[in-house]
């Protein structure tokens, strides 16, 4: 069961990454994926499993501007997971993703136990 949930989360995260990267438009998203693949071997399919490298890749392209794209991804992710997103300046992107995953897994567990 937990493995199934992890896979489900990875799928939702992949969708969130894809939607979040649309911030600048479709062509820019393709360009970002191209550079992530070229420099960090990150593809659309394996991105969810390599979040630290993904964050480094974004920063290598946009510098501090990566923060805005990360927030866009987190916004989509939290909304897909039906969790409330609070923009916390202190916690990093990967940390926020881990928190989202934990919160969602807890929520799902609670929902199952209530049924």
């Amino acid at each position, binding site marked *: 069961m937990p493995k199934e949930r992890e896979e489900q989360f990875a799928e939702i995260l992949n969708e969130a990454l894809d939607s979040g990267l649309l*911030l*600048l*438009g*479709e*062509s*820019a998203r393709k*360009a*970002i994926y191209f*550079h992530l693949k070229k420099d960090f071997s990150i593809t659309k399919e394996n991105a969810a499993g390599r979040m630290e490298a993904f964050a480094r890749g974004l*920063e*290598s*392209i*946009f*510098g*501090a*501007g*990566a*923060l*805005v794209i990360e*927030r866009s991804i987190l916004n989509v992710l939290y909304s897909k997971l039906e969790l409330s997103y609070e923009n916390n300046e202190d916690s990093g992107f990967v940390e926020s993703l881990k928190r989202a995953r934990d919160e969602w897994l807890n929520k799902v567990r609670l929902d199952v136990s209530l049924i």
Partner: protein
Amino acid sequence: MYIGCDMKTAYWIGAILGVSITLIYLFQERYPDFMNLFSNAFPPFVAGAAMIASVFALMKYWGNLGDRFSKIWIGFSSGMVCWFLGELGWAIYTLILNVEIPYPSIADVVWLIGYIPLFIALFLYVRTFRSATSKLMRIATDIGLFTGSFTLFVFFAAQILVAPVEEGIITLIFDLAYPALDLALLSLSILALLIFAKGKIARAWFFINGAILMTIVGDMLFSYTTLQGTYYNGHFLELFFHWGYILFALGFYTHQKEL
């Protein structure tokens, strides 16, 4: 989509072009007739190069009109098209209509119109990433720009006070409009450079900021020399405009290569 050569080649082409035109201006006393032709005929080519670089970037980033990057690059390209048409207009005035210094003219109106899409493009770009800037960064930029604007105002106020009576009010408005609009562009491009400082696209913003700085210096010197009546075709100040266009071309090209 792969467009053009690799970055190293592009930088070499830019550097060789920049040095070559500097040498042409340095030794202009040996070929005054050629210099008059070069001074008026070359700008549409170098502005055309910047325009083509921006159109290449637009082609790369174009998705649909709703995409942010599509809007941004339409802005950059439209601005560069206007500046190219401005340069072409100047060349037509001087080389075909035999107007020695066509300032102000319709060409200036086209140039000034070009600032609008350029400003919108920079504004949209920076607004997208503005939340990544710290308050301190924004305050520092504002202080820098205020100091620059104030210096510019004092410089021009002093010039206007001593300007010859025959200098029309329209000329003075144009004299002031160019550097003021350049500063407006710089206020946004500096923020972009600070935001992307540690990223790959910082290189593109470095060139774009350099281009705007060159244009500011060129415009200020042009306004000053026309007010003083010391401007002539082939004046060294034209180099700043040429270097500016080369840097714009490199900036747009680098952007579409790095992202």
